[in-house]
């Protein structure tokens, strides 16, 4: 055999091995003829190169819902797919463990392979995705994948592809989801073109679905046309093309898969470069959040309008560079009939900095709607805070600060800030983890106050710069990061602190550095610090008057049952109430129960409540666990007329974003309600909604955060310096008229005086204020009968019980 013929045979062997998914290396091929190695290596390279030129697979349908008949997997180009592939399951094969009959292959991608399958038993068509990455994943990673995937599978929305089932097949995770007939948006866009109005309508629908998922704490991170599936395409001979019922597929799972995959392929950038947000392209993982999906929606809008994503270069690397550094070509350049308003919306989504985009997918949806009905768009976002993430810590002081400062001058005019360096406020709003969006509304409200101050000339002739601590999700890091804000970022004040557990950690830092923290959340009190100004209401300001004046004296309720979440704040408040109620003539506590967070077993508690025959229920439960309880109470016929419930930690925001039928007729207690009358409140709400959209709600924490910034600004002006020690000295003498009334600090304790207000929940979710204290109530941080020292001992015992942590290690 001649050398040429031999090379030909070796290359054929290589192609065959590659088609089988396990390509032999040139070394393996040439083991017996090393002199041909160089030629074979070169020819293998050539074949690889031309195969990818000839590969048309990407131009076929690679979606989960594509039509199986359009795929011809054994065409030569199709056979040249990459190395590690899941086993090709023959049609008709039954995944015996999981009860699916494979009907055909719908597509394959980097992540895995998608089959059209019949689910036995339930007798329905499904798309079955078997994931490629799982094979080498560590058990802990897989466990995490399943945990996240189960959360995602709980999403129920008409525009999100439903996940039916999760499992594993021979060690590879798989999931079954809705099968959609009409394929993906990717395919549809090759054949059809949407009018600008239809484009806006489509993206609005998707944005609302994305917002729903964000509310559940889930971020998609991989929005692209291939992930949008359709039930039908209507393309009439006359008139506009319409894409029916778009649904978002693979919600959040893509990234989870990436996560387990990263174990086997460290250092790779995963995802589709042309559809990545700048923070993803730059691997700033800590910045990935809801705004990442807003960017993704912007890319979708761009592609629906123009036919292509904004950035596409010859190589992935160049594309990533463009995503990070270049401005997108204007859509109207590519499509001349693109209306300016729609272009504006699109470009606002595509801003490089997450904080300059729409603040939520919902805000984007609202603007898309305004475009469709011809209303003016929302005003552009306010000056964003400079975000710092742990990963980019050292790099931020240079270029980022420079560009932001330049932006600020551009917006407000250099002359407004004649006196050099900005004054910095550090905002500390810890989010408990990547799946949860928290504190955003409060932070937005605080940024709004900063923006207002800057607009009117800043403070002491200096600009105010907002610096945000990025997601200190590991509680240990809160101290470390507060410290960095003080030392490295040289902030003049810290505002925030989220939960009591977080505050207690930040407290140590501000005391150590003799600095200043303004804490704007409702809490249990039981604390004193010369370095903290406590702006949130505490039990003697809300619970005592609500129980004594309103429930006992006005409603004549005497028998109380206390129910709460099993974490620090509710436990401490219950303890305080237990000391207070026995001092009221005729009043008694007839029962007390704590439930772990997310506990579905509320029925026994409801039984206990009923058996104890209380006249009012004092609810100290956090968040939507309240709803679970209320639902069960209603089912047990414990209605507001028979047993009124007074909730202390359930905010207006939570109530409006959730089903509220269960709570209609019950009561909330707070020092602020959005429905308060008065010009200051009307101005505040208007400002908030102008900036963040009409859905944006004001509630107690947002109002207090907003007021905190203004109150601090008053103190800075009075002290003529931003030095924390000087500001602390004068802040007790300030009086700021906030949206909810005057804000004053008791110099003796550092606690704010607060109003107590009781509101009744109406069927439409709004609050009708039933009762309000005449004036702000002075805080009593350590209420009787326990003395301060007793309270400290009680706190210490709880801390010890929880393994020397301020968070309950049991699910709380």
């Amino acid at each position, binding site marked *: 055999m001649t050398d040429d013929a031999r090379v030909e045979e070796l290359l054929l062997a290589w192609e065959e091995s590659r088609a089988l998914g396990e390509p032999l290396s040139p070394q393996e091929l040439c083991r017996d003829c090393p002199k041909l190695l160089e030629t074979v290596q070169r020819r293998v390279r050539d074949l690889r190169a031309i195969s990818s030129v000839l590969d048309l697979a990407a131009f076929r349908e690679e979606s989960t819902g594509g039509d199986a008949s359009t795929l011809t997997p054994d*065409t030569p180009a199709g056979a040249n797919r990459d190395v590690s592939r899941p086993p090709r399951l023959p049609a008709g094969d039954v995944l015996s463990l999981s009860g699916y009959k494979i009907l055909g292959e719908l597509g394959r991608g980097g992540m895995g392979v998608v089959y059209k399958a019949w689910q036995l038993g339930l007798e329905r068509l499904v798309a079955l995705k078997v994931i490629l990455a799982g094979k080498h994943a560590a058990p802990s990673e897989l466990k995490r994948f399943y945990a996240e995937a189960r959360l995602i599978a709980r999403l129920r929305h008409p525009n999100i592809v439903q996940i039916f089932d999760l499992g594993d097949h021979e060690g590879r995770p798989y999931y079954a989801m809705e099968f959609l007939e009409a394929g993906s948006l990717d395919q549809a866009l*090759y054949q059809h073109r949407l009018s600008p109005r239809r484009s806006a309508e489509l993206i609005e629908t998707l944005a609302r679905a994305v917002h729903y998922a964000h509310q559940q704490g889930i971020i998609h991170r991989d929005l692209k046309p291939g992930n949008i599936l359709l039930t039908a395409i209507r393309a009439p001979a006359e008139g506009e093309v319409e894409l029916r019922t778009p649904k978002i597929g693979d919600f959040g799972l893509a990234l989870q898969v990436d996560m387990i995959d990263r174990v086997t392929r460290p250092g790779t950038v995963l995802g589709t470069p042309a559809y990545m947000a700048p923070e993803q392209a730059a691997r700033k993982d800590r910045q990935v959040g809801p705004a990442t999906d807003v960017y993704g929606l912007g890319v979708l809008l761009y592609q629906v309008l123009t*036919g292509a994503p904004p950035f596409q270069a010859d190589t992935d690397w160049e594309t990533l560079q463009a995503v990070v550094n270049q401005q997108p070509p204007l859509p109207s350049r*590519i499509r001349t009939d693109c209306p300016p308003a729609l272009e504006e919306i699109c470009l606002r989504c595509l801003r490089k900095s997450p904080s300059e985009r729409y603040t939520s997918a919902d805000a984007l949806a609202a603007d898309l709607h305004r475009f469709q009905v011809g209303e003016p768009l929302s005003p552009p976002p306010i000056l964003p805070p400079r975000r710092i993430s742990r990963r980019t810590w050292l790099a931020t002081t240079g270029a980022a600060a420079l560009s932001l400062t330049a932006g600020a001058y551009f917006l407000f005019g250099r002359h407004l800030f004649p006196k050099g360096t900005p004054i910095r406020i550090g905002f500390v709003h810890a989010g408990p983890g990547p799946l949860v969006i928290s504190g955003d509304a409060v932070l937005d409200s605080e940024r709004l106050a900063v923006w207002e101050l800057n607009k009117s000339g800043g403070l002491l002739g200096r600009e105010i710069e907002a610096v945000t601590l990025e997601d200190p999700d590991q509680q240990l890091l809160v101290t470390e990061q507060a410290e960095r804000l003080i030392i490295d970022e040289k902030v003049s004040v810290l505002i925030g602190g989220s939960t009591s557990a977080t505050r207690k950690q930040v407290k140590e830092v501000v005391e150590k550095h003799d600095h200043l923290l303004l804490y704007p959340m409702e809490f249990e009190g039981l604390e004193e610090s010369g370095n903290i100004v406590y702006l949130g209401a505490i039990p003697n300001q809300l619970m005592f008057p609500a129980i004594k004046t309103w429930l006992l004296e006005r409603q004549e309720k005497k028998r109380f049952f206390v129910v709460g979440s099993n974490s620090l704040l509710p436990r401490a408040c219950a303890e305080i109430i237990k000391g207070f109620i026995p001092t009221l003539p005729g009043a008694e506590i007839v029962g007390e129960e704590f439930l772990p967070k997310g506990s579905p077993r509320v029925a026994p508690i409801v039984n206990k409540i009923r058996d104890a025959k209380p006249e009012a229920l004092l609810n100290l439960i956090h968040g939507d666990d309240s709803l679970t309880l209320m639902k069960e109470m209603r089912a047990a016929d414990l209605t507001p007329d028979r047993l009124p419930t007074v909730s202390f930690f359930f905010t207006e925001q939570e109530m409006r974003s959730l089903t509220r039928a269960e709570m209609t007729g019950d009561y909330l207690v707070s020092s602020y309600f959005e429905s308060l009358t008065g010009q200051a409140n009307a101005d505040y709400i208007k400002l908030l909604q102008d900036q963040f959209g009409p859905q944006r709600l004001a509630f107690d924490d947002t109002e207090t955060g907003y007021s905190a910034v203004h109150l601090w600004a008053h103190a800075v002006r009075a002290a003529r310096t931003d030095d924390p020690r000087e500001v602390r000295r004068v802040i007790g003498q300030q009086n700021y008229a906030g949206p909810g009334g005057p804000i004053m600090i008791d110099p003796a304790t550092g606690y704010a005086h607060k109003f107590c207000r009781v509101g009744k929940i109406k069927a439409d979710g709004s609050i009708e204020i039933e009762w309000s204290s005449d004036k702000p109530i002075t805080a009593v941080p350590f209420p009787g009968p326990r003395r301060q020292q007793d309270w400290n001992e009680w706190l210490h015992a709880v801390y010890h019980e929880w393994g020397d942590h301020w968070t309950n290690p049991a699910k709380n």
Partner: protein
Amino acid sequence: MAEISSKSLLLQTWIDRLRAGDDSARAELVNSACERLRLITRKMLRRYPRVKRWEQTDDVFQNASLRLYRTLEQVAPESVRDFLRLASLNIRRELLDLVKHHYGPQGQGANYATKAEQANSDTRSGEGPEAAALTHEPFRLTAWTEFHHAVETLPDEEREVFDLLWYQGLPQAEAAALLGVSDRTVKRRWQAARLHLVDALHGQLPPED
């Protein structure tokens, strides 16, 4: 040898009908042969965001269909093989024309920039069109021109296999059956054809995305 597959059988039925004077079969033939053209056009134009890709893809499809239709009016192919050779040739020519007339450096590509400029000056003032994108794309498409030309220079046997597998998207077994050769021979010719293309283009393949 593999059996003649359903697609070939279908094509044969239409060819028979066409030869028997059934004109409607012509349209069927054209449609089935041009299916693959869409994919190839998409690939060639994928990086061309500044043209309205929908129209362009559809234009190419229309033109190629029309061209093949006219050819079939003049020549009635005798066999499926005959027909597919004809179809591939037409598709290739159409793709070459697409580049030449619409985007090539000597074609209307230059006009495109002018048009863009005019359109811009009508609607927006200030900035001009983005030159980088306009100059880069014709280069890329020129590479495709070279590629299609290179296919024409392949030895006949290899070109025919290349036509069937790539321009027509036939599975290898079906191509083998149609040509009356073994699967192995098809694989050999397919490999040789691709390596010849790399050589003919001196490694200058159309840029990948």
